[in-house]
């Protein structure tokens, strides 16, 4: 059965065992690391941006995904907010989230080490327009990144590759 390698790995033999092809190659492309954003955001400070990236990961946590995907998503949402008439939505939201974090753990949201503690803070603002905007926009801002698809095992466009008729549409072998 033709498998999509979802894991970022350096093991050459693991790589060679998987099929070649754009999807598999994209899947093993090195994940960028580091915490700097691609560029500064328009509606939030650098600190605020780091909070949003952490929040994005806590909303849709995929341990397999590098921070870069969440950063790209946050950048998309920021651009969206610039275009709308609610330019302070994100910066106000970060403030509210940090206040909630202070109240619960006495520290900023990004500095809470434990995921479950951060979730407790997040839940206190779950009903806010800020949370709704972040969660709702992430659905496309995160999951519509083509580079992310192979990480979840999805191969994207297939017409250009002749469809799956010769590429495993019926290759299940474990039933």
């Amino acid at each position: 059965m033709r498998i999509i390698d979802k894991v970022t790995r350096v093991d050459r033999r693991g790589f060679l065992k998987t099929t070649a092809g754009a999807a598999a190659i994209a899947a093993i492309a090195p994940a960028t690391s580091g915490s700097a954003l691609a560029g500064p955001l328009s509606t939030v400070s650098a600190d605020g941006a780091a909070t949003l990236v952490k929040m994005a990961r806590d909303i849709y946590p995929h341990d397999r995904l590098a921070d870069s995907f969440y950063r790209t998503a946050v950048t998309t949402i920021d651009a969206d907010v610039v275009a709308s008439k609610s330019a302070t939505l994100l910066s106000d939201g970060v403030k509210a989230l940090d206040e909630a974090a202070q109240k619960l753990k006495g520290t900023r949201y990004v500095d809470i080490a434990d995921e479950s503690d951060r979730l407790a803070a997040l839940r206190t603002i779950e009903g806010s327009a800020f949370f709704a905007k972040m969660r709702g926009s992430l659905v496309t801002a995160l999951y519509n990144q083509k580079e992310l698809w192979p990480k979840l095992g999805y191969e994207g466009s297939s017409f250009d590759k002749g469809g799956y008729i010769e590429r495993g549409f019926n290759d299940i072998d474990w039933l």
Partner: protein
Amino acid sequence: MAKFDLTDDSVVVVIGSGAGGGTLSNELAQKGINVVCLEAGGRYENSDFINDEWDSFAQLAWADMRTTSGSWRVAKDFPNLPAWIVKAVGGSTTHWAGASLRFQDHEWKARTTYGDVKGAALIDWPIDGAEMAPWYAKAEDKMGTTGTNGIPRLPGNNNFKVLHAGATKIGYKEVHTGNMSINSQPRDDRTSCHQLGFCFQGCKMGAKWSTLYTEIPKGEQTGHLEVRPNSQVLQIEHNAKGKVTGVVYADKEGKLQRQAARLIAVAGNSIESPRLLLNSHSTMFPDGLANGSGHVGKHYMRHTTGSVYAVFDKPVHMYRGTTMAGIVKDEARFDPTRGFVGGYEMETLSLGVPFMAAFLNPGAWGRDFTWFLDRYDHMAGLWIVGEDMPQESNRITLSPDKKDAFGMPVANVHFDDHPNDVAMRTHAYKQGAAIYDAVGALKTFATPPYPSTHNLGSNRMSEKPADGVVNKWGQTHEVKNLFVSDGSQFTSGASENPTLTIVALAIRQAHHVAELMAKNEV
């Protein structure tokens, strides 16, 4: 290609170019009748289609505003997207999956078979299975439906194989790759399915039947059909005798035009068709055209739907190959011992990562949600499609305050589940999960109904004028030269996907309209 004058009042005007309108237009043109087909959306060809869920959605879907009300979950999660249907030449037959099933005989007689279901406004269709059989046969031949006319069924993909293994293990007998209007071998100058897996995004191979590249070009070749894309009809006009005389539409520049007509057929799908009739009110028809009985917009149905997705220990890759790759038919029977009337089908379904993220469990977040997406390639999925109960209060109305770009009030879609719908869905979720549990699912998930893809019943067909909007030919009870030609004619929904029936009704209607015209009765 024909071109007709705006003042030519000998033409038939067909509104909408989808399953109903596209088929009717071609059938009339083949008989030498001149047709102007007005289509609100643009014209895209196979090569324009995009193998990308959101980009394709942006290209083809009806994204103009609609509003919602009622207790259905769609109203909360997608308040301005009650339906997932198309605004383009070819209508929703560009997006559709291709499942083409005949009604079962008893489903034409829902009131008689099911009895008096409290809160349901059931009536019998004024036609039956015997009357429809020859029209179904013509439709299957036209569409190249697999499993009919000696056309082999499609090969099963991975998603189907999981369904088949589970379903047969728990004792289901009628499990196969369906009756699909997708070429399993080249036919009708179209190639066969290459298992792209983007059936919902417009079939780039042209293997799947769509009026866009079958009916419409065939009609155009006769010299009797002119299709005008980017032409949204805003109002239907009538004369002092109460006969319709033409339509006012906005052309691609947004300029208003008036096209005269001898006869008008409305086929804008079940939200837009009643919207247009309601918006065509006048002093003679104060509640809208053909609405003397007050039924226009009422009894809107959307099938009782839902999905079950299952995650397995080992990979499936359900997205490879035809989206609707197989069916379990055993639950489609009438058997009230299950706690509900009507039946349901289970059909494989797959969404790509972008749509799965949006529709698996709208609004959900956190690890419970991402657990599924992390195992996307280990998922299998099915869709439930069952008969829902017509209810008077499930209804399309004109928004009192929201208007579209042309100043036309937008449609509001009100929907509440009937208790029978809820009982059926609960049963179907359980059976769907049982299928996957039988082959070792780690977890299954009951996904709520998507925005409606099957929109039906809002101009229903009835024997008596007091019970509905159109007669057994789709001719409005009130206006002789006004017809309805899409799924809004449906008297009841049945458990089958609707398009084969829409097409069969359109072929039959064309035959009747031609006769009436020849006899000068319209």
